Protein backbone atom coordinates (compact mmCIF):
# COMPACT_ATOMS: atom_id res chain seq x y z
CA UNK A 1 0.00 0.00 0.00
CA UNK A 2 1.26 3.43 -0.88
CA UNK A 3 0.66 6.68 0.90
CA UNK A 4 -0.20 9.44 -1.55
CA UNK A 5 -0.78 13.01 -0.46
CA UNK A 6 -1.99 15.66 -2.87
CA UNK A 7 -0.88 13.50 -5.80
CA UNK A 8 2.62 12.94 -4.42
CA UNK A 9 3.70 9.49 -3.31
CA UNK A 10 5.27 9.75 0.14
CA UNK A 11 5.46 6.14 1.23
CA UNK A 12 5.34 2.94 -0.77
CA UNK A 13 6.23 -0.67 -0.18
CA UNK A 14 7.36 0.08 3.34
CA UNK A 15 9.84 2.83 2.49
CA UNK A 16 9.88 6.55 1.90
CA UNK A 17 9.46 7.14 -1.81
CA UNK A 18 12.70 7.80 -3.69
CA UNK A 19 11.34 11.12 -4.89
CA UNK A 20 11.14 12.47 -1.36
CA UNK A 21 14.36 14.23 -0.33
CA UNK A 22 15.59 12.72 2.90
CA UNK A 23 18.65 13.32 5.04
CA UNK A 24 21.98 12.04 3.80
CA UNK A 25 23.74 12.09 7.17
CA UNK A 26 22.84 9.21 9.47
CA UNK A 27 23.79 8.99 13.13
CA UNK A 28 25.23 5.52 13.65
CA UNK A 29 26.63 5.50 17.15
CA UNK A 30 27.31 7.72 20.17
CA UNK A 31 30.00 6.81 22.68
CA UNK A 32 30.39 8.69 25.95
CA UNK A 33 33.66 8.63 27.86
CA UNK A 34 33.81 8.22 31.59
CA UNK A 35 37.43 7.80 32.64
CA UNK A 36 37.79 5.62 29.56
CA UNK A 37 41.12 4.37 28.28
CA UNK A 38 39.81 4.28 24.74
CA UNK A 39 36.63 4.72 22.72
CA UNK A 40 36.36 2.24 19.85
CA UNK A 41 34.04 2.01 16.87
CA UNK A 42 34.17 -1.55 15.58
CA UNK A 43 32.16 -2.71 12.60
CA UNK A 44 29.52 -5.20 13.66
CA UNK A 45 29.88 -4.56 17.37
CA UNK A 46 27.40 -2.62 19.49
CA UNK A 47 25.38 -1.57 16.42
CA UNK A 48 28.35 0.10 14.75
CA UNK A 49 28.41 0.07 10.95
CA UNK A 50 31.87 0.73 9.49
CA UNK A 51 31.91 -0.97 6.13
CA UNK A 52 30.81 -0.34 2.57
CA UNK A 53 27.36 0.85 3.58
CA UNK A 54 28.59 4.44 3.36
CA UNK A 55 31.36 5.99 1.29
CA UNK A 56 32.21 8.47 4.03
CA UNK A 57 32.10 8.33 7.81
CA UNK A 58 32.32 11.39 10.04
CA UNK A 59 33.33 11.27 13.70
CA UNK A 60 32.39 14.33 15.78
CA UNK A 61 34.23 15.02 19.02
CA UNK A 62 32.47 16.99 21.74
CA UNK A 63 34.40 18.33 24.72
CA UNK A 64 36.96 15.53 24.99
CA UNK A 65 38.56 16.18 28.36
CA UNK A 66 41.81 14.40 29.19
CA UNK A 67 42.56 12.93 32.56
CA UNK A 68 46.17 14.04 32.18
CA UNK A 69 47.42 17.48 31.13
CA UNK A 70 49.24 17.88 27.80
CA UNK A 71 47.93 14.58 26.47
CA UNK A 72 47.45 14.47 22.69
CA UNK A 73 44.16 13.30 21.21
CA UNK A 74 44.80 10.36 18.90
CA UNK A 75 43.24 7.85 16.54
CA UNK A 76 44.35 4.45 15.31
CA UNK A 77 42.89 2.11 12.73
CA UNK A 78 42.34 -1.63 12.54
CA UNK A 79 41.87 -3.92 9.57
CA UNK A 80 40.73 -6.93 11.63
CA UNK A 81 37.69 -5.57 13.51
CA UNK A 82 39.73 -4.38 16.43
CA UNK A 83 41.74 -7.49 17.18
CA UNK A 84 44.83 -5.46 16.36
CA UNK A 85 45.20 -1.71 16.01
CA UNK A 86 48.10 -0.19 14.14
CA UNK A 87 48.10 0.02 10.35
CA UNK A 88 50.89 2.02 8.70
CA UNK A 89 49.70 5.61 8.39
CA UNK A 90 51.21 8.78 6.94
CA UNK A 91 49.88 12.22 7.88
CA UNK A 92 50.44 15.94 7.70
CA UNK A 93 49.74 18.25 10.63
CA UNK A 94 49.67 22.01 11.00
CA UNK A 95 48.29 24.37 13.59
CA UNK A 96 47.24 27.97 14.05
CA UNK A 97 47.51 29.35 17.57
CA UNK A 98 47.42 32.34 19.85
CA UNK A 99 47.70 32.52 23.62
CA UNK A 100 45.15 34.17 25.87
CA UNK A 101 47.55 37.05 26.41
CA UNK A 102 47.33 37.95 22.75
CA UNK A 103 50.85 36.72 21.97
CA UNK A 104 52.48 33.94 20.02
CA UNK A 105 50.16 34.14 17.06
CA UNK A 106 51.41 31.82 14.37
CA UNK A 107 50.55 29.14 11.87
CA UNK A 108 53.10 26.36 11.41
CA UNK A 109 53.74 22.80 10.34
CA UNK A 110 54.11 20.46 13.35
CA UNK A 111 56.93 18.24 12.24
CA UNK A 112 57.17 16.25 15.45
CA UNK A 113 53.49 15.37 15.61
CA UNK A 114 52.90 14.05 12.10
CA UNK A 115 53.35 10.41 11.08
CA UNK A 116 55.45 8.66 8.43
CA UNK A 117 54.30 5.08 7.97
CA UNK A 118 53.65 4.89 11.69
CA UNK A 119 51.80 1.96 13.21
CA UNK A 120 51.33 3.78 16.50
CA UNK A 121 48.34 5.91 17.39
CA UNK A 122 48.14 9.02 15.19
CA UNK A 123 48.04 12.47 16.78
CA UNK A 124 45.06 14.55 15.74
CA UNK A 125 45.84 17.29 18.27
CA UNK A 126 48.84 18.43 20.21
CA UNK A 127 48.75 18.64 24.03
CA UNK A 128 45.31 19.39 25.45
CA UNK A 129 44.86 21.13 28.79
CA UNK A 130 43.32 19.18 31.66
CA UNK A 131 41.99 22.08 33.72
CA UNK A 132 38.34 21.61 34.57
CA UNK A 133 37.16 23.76 31.66
CA UNK A 134 39.67 22.59 29.05
CA UNK A 135 38.94 20.11 26.28
CA UNK A 136 39.15 19.39 22.55
CA UNK A 137 36.32 19.31 19.99
CA UNK A 138 36.31 18.71 16.26
CA UNK A 139 35.78 16.07 13.62
CA UNK A 140 37.40 13.43 11.46
CA UNK A 141 36.24 12.35 8.01
CA UNK A 142 37.15 8.82 6.87
CA UNK A 143 36.62 8.08 3.20
CA UNK A 144 35.63 4.70 1.75
CA UNK A 145 37.08 2.50 4.51
CA UNK A 146 35.82 -0.67 2.84
CA UNK A 147 37.78 -0.11 -0.37
CA UNK A 148 40.12 -2.96 -1.19
CA UNK A 149 41.75 -1.02 -4.03
CA UNK A 150 42.88 2.26 -2.48
CA UNK A 151 44.56 3.59 0.64
CA UNK A 152 42.11 5.10 3.15
CA UNK A 153 42.10 8.88 3.25
CA UNK A 154 41.05 10.90 6.26
CA UNK A 155 40.96 14.60 7.16
CA UNK A 156 40.57 15.98 10.65
CA UNK A 157 40.10 19.35 12.35
CA UNK A 158 40.33 19.85 16.10
CA UNK A 159 39.98 22.99 18.20
CA UNK A 160 41.24 22.99 21.77
CA UNK A 161 42.81 24.75 24.72
CA UNK A 162 46.35 23.61 25.17
CA UNK A 163 48.23 22.85 28.35
CA UNK A 164 50.26 25.97 29.13
CA UNK A 165 50.66 28.46 31.94
CA UNK A 166 49.06 30.95 29.62
CA UNK A 167 46.62 28.79 27.70
CA UNK A 168 46.61 28.79 23.93
CA UNK A 169 43.71 28.62 21.53
CA UNK A 170 44.79 26.08 18.92
CA UNK A 171 43.27 24.67 15.78
CA UNK A 172 44.93 21.59 14.33
CA UNK A 173 44.47 20.21 10.83
CA UNK A 174 45.55 16.66 10.11
CA UNK A 175 45.28 14.91 6.77
CA UNK A 176 46.60 11.56 5.71
CA UNK A 177 45.96 8.00 4.77
CA UNK A 178 45.93 4.56 6.33
CA UNK A 179 48.31 2.91 3.90
CA UNK A 180 46.56 -0.37 3.23
CA UNK A 181 44.31 -1.83 0.58
CA UNK A 182 42.63 -3.97 3.21
CA UNK A 183 39.31 -2.71 4.49
CA UNK A 184 39.55 -0.59 7.62
CA UNK A 185 36.79 -1.79 9.93
CA UNK A 186 37.56 -0.24 13.30
CA UNK A 187 38.74 3.13 14.59
CA UNK A 188 39.87 3.77 18.15
CA UNK A 189 40.35 7.13 19.91
CA UNK A 190 42.46 7.82 22.99
CA UNK A 191 44.77 10.33 24.65
CA UNK A 192 48.53 9.84 24.51
CA UNK A 193 48.62 9.48 28.29
CA UNK A 194 45.91 8.92 30.85
CA UNK A 195 42.23 8.36 30.27
CA UNK A 196 39.55 10.20 28.37
CA UNK A 197 38.04 11.68 31.50
CA UNK A 198 34.84 12.73 29.73
CA UNK A 199 33.50 13.63 26.31
CA UNK A 200 31.28 12.35 23.55
CA UNK A 201 32.12 10.98 20.12
CA UNK A 202 29.37 10.62 17.54
CA UNK A 203 29.77 8.58 14.37
CA UNK A 204 27.79 9.37 11.22
CA UNK A 205 27.48 7.70 7.86
CA UNK A 206 27.09 9.82 4.73
CA UNK A 207 24.96 8.41 1.93
Amino acid at each position, binding site marked *: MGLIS*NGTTLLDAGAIDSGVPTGAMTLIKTLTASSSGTLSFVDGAASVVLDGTYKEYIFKFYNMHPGTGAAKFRMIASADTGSNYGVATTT*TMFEAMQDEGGSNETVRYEDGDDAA*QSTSAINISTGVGADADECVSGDLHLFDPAST*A*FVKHFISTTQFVNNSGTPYCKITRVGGYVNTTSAVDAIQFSFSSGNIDSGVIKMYGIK
Partner: protein
Amino acid sequence: MAIISNAVTIADAGAFSLNLGSMVLIKTLTASSSANLAFVNGASSVVLDGTYPTYMFKFINIHPATDDVFFQFNGSDDTSSHAYNITKTTTNFSAEHNEGDSTAQLGYVAGDDLAQATGYQRLFNGVGNDNDGSLSGELFLFSPANTTFVKHFMARVGGHRHSSAALDSYVAGYFNTAAAITALNFQMSSGNIDAGIIKLYGIKAS
Protein backbone atom coordinates in the same frame (compact mmCIF):
# COMPACT_ATOMS: atom_id res chain seq x y z
CA MET B 1 -5.35 15.38 3.12
CA ALA B 2 -3.06 15.48 6.09
CA ILE B 3 -1.79 12.54 8.10
CA ILE B 4 -1.78 13.28 11.79
CA SER B 5 -0.51 10.89 14.39
CA ASN B 6 -1.01 11.63 18.08
CA ALA B 7 -1.55 15.29 17.23
CA VAL B 8 1.65 15.48 15.17
CA THR B 9 1.24 16.26 11.46
CA ILE B 10 3.27 13.68 9.56
CA ALA B 11 2.45 14.68 6.01
CA ASP B 12 0.41 17.39 4.42
CA ALA B 13 -0.14 18.89 0.99
CA GLY B 14 2.08 16.37 -0.76
CA ALA B 15 5.10 16.71 1.51
CA PHE B 16 6.39 15.41 4.78
CA SER B 17 5.97 17.84 7.63
CA LEU B 18 8.61 16.08 9.67
CA ASN B 19 12.28 17.03 9.59
CA LEU B 20 13.85 14.47 7.27
CA GLY B 21 17.35 15.91 7.53
CA SER B 22 19.04 19.02 6.24
CA MET B 23 21.63 17.38 3.99
CA VAL B 24 20.12 15.90 0.83
CA LEU B 25 21.94 13.67 -1.64
CA ILE B 26 21.18 15.06 -5.09
CA LYS B 27 23.39 13.14 -7.48
CA THR B 28 26.18 10.56 -7.60
CA LEU B 29 28.51 10.36 -10.58
CA THR B 30 30.94 7.47 -10.95
CA ALA B 31 33.99 7.79 -13.16
CA SER B 32 35.04 4.98 -15.47
CA SER B 33 37.85 6.23 -17.66
CA SER B 34 35.93 9.50 -17.83
CA ALA B 35 37.35 12.67 -19.32
CA ASN B 36 35.32 14.70 -16.84
CA LEU B 37 32.41 14.59 -14.44
CA ALA B 38 29.95 17.45 -14.85
CA PHE B 39 27.02 18.50 -12.65
CA VAL B 40 24.64 20.56 -14.78
CA ASN B 41 21.52 22.09 -13.31
CA GLY B 42 18.44 20.50 -14.84
CA ALA B 43 20.26 17.63 -16.47
CA SER B 44 20.19 14.05 -15.22
CA SER B 45 18.25 15.03 -12.09
CA VAL B 46 20.90 17.50 -10.98
CA VAL B 47 19.70 20.47 -8.95
CA LEU B 48 22.17 23.35 -8.81
CA ASP B 49 20.08 26.48 -8.45
CA GLY B 50 18.35 28.44 -5.73
CA THR B 51 16.77 25.37 -4.14
CA TYR B 52 19.59 25.16 -1.59
CA PRO B 53 21.82 27.97 -0.26
CA THR B 54 24.80 25.63 0.02
CA TYR B 55 25.94 22.77 -2.19
CA MET B 56 28.55 20.26 -1.14
CA PHE B 57 30.55 17.98 -3.43
CA LYS B 58 32.28 14.92 -1.98
CA PHE B 59 35.18 13.28 -3.78
CA ILE B 60 35.67 9.59 -3.02
CA ASN B 61 38.87 7.90 -4.19
CA ILE B 62 39.38 9.88 -7.37
CA HIS B 63 42.02 7.92 -9.27
CA PRO B 64 43.78 9.35 -12.35
CA ALA B 65 44.78 7.42 -15.42
CA THR B 66 47.93 9.54 -15.74
CA ASP B 67 50.58 9.92 -13.07
CA ASP B 68 51.38 13.25 -11.39
CA VAL B 69 48.42 15.31 -12.57
CA PHE B 70 46.21 17.97 -11.04
CA PHE B 71 42.60 17.39 -10.01
CA GLN B 72 40.76 20.56 -10.99
CA PHE B 73 37.38 22.15 -11.58
CA ASN B 74 35.64 25.04 -13.28
CA GLY B 75 32.18 26.59 -13.38
CA SER B 76 29.71 27.67 -16.01
CA ASP B 77 27.05 30.37 -16.01
CA ASP B 78 25.49 29.24 -19.27
CA THR B 79 22.05 27.75 -19.47
CA SER B 80 22.64 25.53 -22.48
CA SER B 81 26.12 25.44 -24.01
CA HIS B 82 27.96 25.21 -20.70
CA ALA B 83 31.39 26.53 -21.46
CA TYR B 84 33.51 26.24 -18.32
CA ASN B 85 35.34 29.54 -18.21
CA ILE B 86 34.26 31.69 -15.29
CA THR B 87 36.72 34.29 -13.99
CA LYS B 88 38.03 33.27 -10.60
CA THR B 89 40.33 34.54 -7.86
CA THR B 90 41.52 31.92 -5.38
CA THR B 91 43.94 30.97 -2.63
CA ASN B 92 45.75 27.66 -2.36
CA PHE B 93 47.85 26.28 0.46
CA SER B 94 48.77 22.78 1.51
CA ALA B 95 50.62 20.58 3.99
CA GLU B 96 52.77 17.72 2.73
CA HIS B 97 54.59 14.86 4.41
CA ASN B 98 56.20 11.95 2.64
CA GLU B 99 56.36 8.34 3.73
CA GLY B 100 60.13 8.54 4.04
CA ASP B 101 59.80 11.40 6.56
CA SER B 102 62.23 13.57 4.61
CA THR B 103 59.71 16.19 3.47
CA ALA B 104 57.36 17.88 5.92
CA GLN B 105 56.10 21.31 5.00
CA LEU B 106 53.26 23.79 5.01
CA GLY B 107 53.10 26.54 2.46
CA TYR B 108 51.17 28.73 0.09
CA VAL B 109 51.18 27.28 -3.43
CA ALA B 110 51.45 30.33 -5.64
CA GLY B 111 51.49 28.30 -8.82
CA ASP B 112 48.16 26.68 -8.09
CA ASP B 113 46.02 29.74 -7.37
CA LEU B 114 44.25 32.03 -9.85
CA ALA B 115 43.96 35.81 -10.11
CA GLN B 116 41.07 36.81 -12.32
CA ALA B 117 41.71 33.85 -14.59
CA THR B 118 39.20 31.72 -16.45
CA GLY B 119 41.13 28.45 -16.46
CA TYR B 120 40.48 25.44 -14.28
CA GLN B 121 41.23 25.78 -10.56
CA ARG B 122 43.55 23.13 -9.18
CA LEU B 123 42.25 21.28 -6.13
CA PHE B 124 45.08 18.78 -5.68
CA ASN B 125 48.64 18.88 -6.94
CA GLY B 126 50.35 15.76 -8.24
CA VAL B 127 48.02 12.86 -7.55
CA GLY B 128 49.65 9.53 -8.37
CA ASN B 129 48.23 6.77 -10.51
CA ASP B 130 49.63 3.87 -8.50
CA ASN B 131 46.97 1.21 -8.17
CA ASP B 132 46.22 2.24 -4.58
CA GLY B 133 46.68 5.99 -5.11
CA SER B 134 43.77 8.42 -5.10
CA LEU B 135 42.37 11.52 -3.45
CA SER B 136 39.26 12.27 -1.40
CA GLY B 137 37.74 15.44 -0.02
CA GLU B 138 34.99 17.98 -0.32
CA LEU B 139 34.06 21.30 -1.88
CA PHE B 140 31.39 23.73 -0.74
CA LEU B 141 29.72 26.13 -3.17
CA PHE B 142 27.65 28.90 -1.65
CA SER B 143 24.52 30.46 -3.17
CA PRO B 144 25.26 29.64 -6.81
CA ALA B 145 21.94 31.10 -7.97
CA ASN B 146 22.56 34.50 -6.43
CA THR B 147 22.53 37.25 -9.05
CA THR B 148 23.91 40.00 -6.82
CA PHE B 149 27.12 38.65 -5.35
CA VAL B 150 30.18 36.73 -6.45
CA LYS B 151 30.01 32.96 -5.73
CA HIS B 152 32.27 31.70 -2.97
CA PHE B 153 33.66 28.20 -2.71
CA MET B 154 36.09 26.40 -0.46
CA ALA B 155 37.60 22.96 -0.68
CA ARG B 156 39.75 20.58 1.31
CA VAL B 157 41.23 17.58 -0.46
CA GLY B 158 43.48 14.93 1.01
CA GLY B 159 45.32 12.42 -1.08
CA HIS B 160 48.26 10.32 -2.02
CA ARG B 161 50.81 12.17 -4.12
CA HIS B 162 52.80 10.49 -6.87
CA SER B 163 55.86 10.94 -4.66
CA SER B 164 54.42 8.66 -1.93
CA ALA B 165 53.39 11.56 0.28
CA ALA B 166 50.27 12.70 2.05
CA LEU B 167 49.00 16.07 0.84
CA ASP B 168 46.29 18.07 2.62
CA SER B 169 45.21 20.76 0.15
CA TYR B 170 43.07 23.84 0.87
CA VAL B 171 41.53 25.94 -1.88
CA ALA B 172 39.13 28.85 -1.50
CA GLY B 173 37.96 31.60 -3.76
CA TYR B 174 35.13 33.01 -5.76
CA PHE B 175 33.61 32.96 -9.21
CA ASN B 176 33.78 36.64 -9.97
CA THR B 177 30.40 36.97 -11.60
CA ALA B 178 26.97 38.15 -10.57
CA ALA B 179 25.41 35.64 -12.96
CA ALA B 180 24.10 32.39 -11.55
CA ILE B 181 26.49 29.44 -11.64
CA THR B 182 24.63 26.62 -13.35
CA ALA B 183 27.20 23.85 -13.63
CA LEU B 184 30.52 22.58 -12.29
CA ASN B 185 32.94 20.37 -14.16
CA PHE B 186 35.68 18.22 -12.61
CA GLN B 187 38.61 16.72 -14.47
CA MET B 188 42.28 15.82 -14.36
CA SER B 189 44.75 18.24 -15.91
CA SER B 190 45.84 15.42 -18.22
CA GLY B 191 44.27 12.08 -19.00
CA ASN B 192 41.05 10.60 -17.71
CA ILE B 193 39.55 10.14 -14.31
CA ASP B 194 40.16 6.42 -14.27
CA ALA B 195 37.87 5.73 -11.31
CA GLY B 196 36.18 7.49 -8.44
CA ILE B 197 32.90 8.92 -7.23
CA ILE B 198 31.68 12.49 -6.85
CA LYS B 199 28.52 13.11 -4.86
CA LEU B 200 26.50 16.32 -4.84
CA TYR B 201 24.50 17.30 -1.77
CA GLY B 202 22.20 20.21 -1.06
CA ILE B 203 22.13 21.77 2.39
CA LYS B 204 18.72 23.10 3.33
CA ALA B 205 18.29 26.64 4.58
CA SER B 206 15.76 25.52 7.16
